[in-house]
């Protein structure tokens, strides 16, 4: 790699810091750019679904054009095994993830942050109890837990995502706690107390806002990706979003039955959508982590 340094001859007071975008690695900028693109696609799809601006309706069956490939007739992304428009169903599929995914994120971040601050800042019994809770949830297979809940209630995506949020909370809690432990080693928390800041200011402003915000943003992006993957797994087992409501998971599952016949498209299209979206969220998290925390790629 070629590195170019330029010696400026200005007085020190005339320097301004480079913007965040300029001083970050190009790779990270590309990652975040792609992630933001995916995020905006998800948002647009959700809004299109809500407003009903769709090329076809979800249950519109075109009996002459079943399992058509992309570009057949007016179906841009082809049709599935019942001749329903793929693009419409893919757009509507987002509905299954967007609000439930947000619920999972809110639960995971809210509960996780609360537990992390309690165990990291207060310590003592709270820390011991929360550590044990974390250990227990870590040792339970998550899918089994979700299936148990589904069996006990009903296969509702909101209930599932609530459980996903609950099981994610310990991971967030331990991240927040580690951060606080790290900050405690530097004595700035002690200094803040000595200089008269209130506990609320210290926790909300100095710990959560200044020191944990990137961590929480990253956890949120990963949480969305996780929500999509969990729903896919459950749909494959038949416990996810139920037909005829489209979700990417049950589209794959339904399409997979026809794969052996050589009609791969009905399950490949949602699979590709999942791949690109999950990848987008992961790269967004990764890139944001590097850019906001000022890390360098080797």
């Amino acid at each position, binding site marked *: 790699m070629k590195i170019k340094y330029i010696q400026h001859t200005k*007085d*020190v*007071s005339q*320097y301004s*810091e480079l913007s965040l975008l300029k001083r970050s690695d190009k790779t990270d900028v590309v990652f975040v750019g792609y992630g933001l693109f995916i995020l905006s696609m998800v948002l647009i799809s959700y809004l299109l679904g809500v407003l009903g601006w769709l090329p076809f309706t979800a249950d519109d069956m075109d009996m002459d054009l079943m399992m058509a490939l992309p570009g057949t007739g007016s179906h841009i992304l082809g049709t599935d095994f019942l001749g329903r428009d793929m693009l419409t169903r893919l757009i509507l599929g987002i509905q299954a993830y967007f609000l439930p995914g947000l619920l999972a994120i809110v639960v995971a971040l809210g509960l996780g942050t609360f537990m992390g601050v309690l165990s990291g800042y207060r310590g003592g019994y709270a820390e011991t109890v929360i550590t044990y809770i974390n250990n227990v949830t870590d040792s339970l297979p998550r899918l089994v837990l979700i299936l148990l809940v589904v069996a006990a209630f009903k296969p509702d995506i909101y209930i599932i995502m609530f459980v996903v949020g609950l099981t994610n909370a310990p991971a967030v809690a331990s991240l927040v706690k580690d951060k606080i432990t790290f*900050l405690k*080693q*530097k*004595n*700035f928390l*002690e*200094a*803040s*107390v*000595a*200089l*008269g*800041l209130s506990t609320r*200011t210290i926790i909300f402003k*100095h710990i959560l806002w*200044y*020191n944990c915000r990137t961590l929480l943003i990253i956890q949120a992006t990963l949480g969305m990706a996780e929500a999509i993957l969990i729903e896919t797994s459950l749909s494959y087992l038949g416990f996810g979003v139920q037909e005829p409501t489209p979700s990417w998971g049950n589209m794959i599952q339904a399409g997979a039955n026809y794969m052996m016949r050589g009609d791969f498209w009905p399950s490949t299209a949602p699979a590709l959508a999942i791949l690109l979206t999950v990848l987008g969220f992961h790269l967004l998290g990764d890139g944001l982590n590097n850019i906001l925390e000022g890390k360098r790629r080797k």
Partner: protein
Amino acid sequence: MSTNPLIKIEDLHTFFYSKAKQAFIRAVDGISMEVPRGKTLGIVGESGSGKSITMMSVLGLISAGPGVIRGKVIYDNGRIKKNLLQGLDDFVDLQEHDGTIMQVDKDLYGWQQHSEQLMKNIRGNEISIIFQNPKAAFNPFTVIGEQIAEMVLLHTRINDPVAAKAKALYWLERVKMDAPEVRYYNYPGALSGGMAQRAMVAMALASEPALLIADEPTTGLDATIQAKVLQLLAEIKADLGITIMIISHDIGVISSLSDYVAVMYGGTVLEYGSAKDVLSTAYEKKHPYAKALLASIPGLENIEKNGARLKAIKGEVLDTIRVVEGCKFASRCDCMTDSVKHKCNTQQPPLEDIGGGHKIRCWLYQ
């Protein structure tokens, strides 16, 4: 204007419980000292003699479970007069037997709540502090200027963020930071040790306190920067009339700033008096520990006196877990004469005034 001292510490005790050794550590064991308004008190002593714990007790920062504080810390700035340890005793049930602590029952939660209540308008507002490691004392993820401005908003009458920023810039300028407008937007990690210490001083002063406690303000700085920071503190003291408590193991640092000096050892004050009395090598009446400390400074004078070798104080710093019957310094003392030897080993000497406010805790001068 009253002539009361700004802060007066009376018979301060701070104990910790060591679970591993099943014993109480008497980190601070009966300290009395006072800081007159506008003057500087230097506290000097080896590591582990209780200097920092004294400071933390004054600020109510002792929160470790079994930490116990007794005594009085009277803060009086003319407007506010209160004992910073008022009523803390009520939360602690202490059982003593022959000067040894047998058992302590403490209502930790109530104690902390009460301590917070007592300190509410004191910390930051009235008493500010400069820490040993200035870089670690800043929030690493935000720029220093904002942290200083936050102090201004919190502790002064200024409520407008723009005015607070201007004030923060003023303080950065005041502590002679080069290019304050640039440094305002620097993260703590981007500053050198000396600059970080200046920023720390600016942050401590931003709340316009009456008392500034400097805990080892020059540790980790090289000699020239050390001199500059000390000069800065001296200028601030002269300009603002602020009262300073400076804690250091370095007699050089103490002597350049202090009006009064307290020499601490093993959690007690062994010598207290004006800087002239305590630190001048010419003055004969002196505690053996202070004498030994002065003799161990590297310097031309001591080289002439002792030859090329530096004179170290033999032995180790007193283990404050052990309860000493006699003088705390007896085991390391060079000056013990036969006439007082028995007393030194069996009885703790009182802190006696030997004239002009110069107090020494030694049987030699009783």
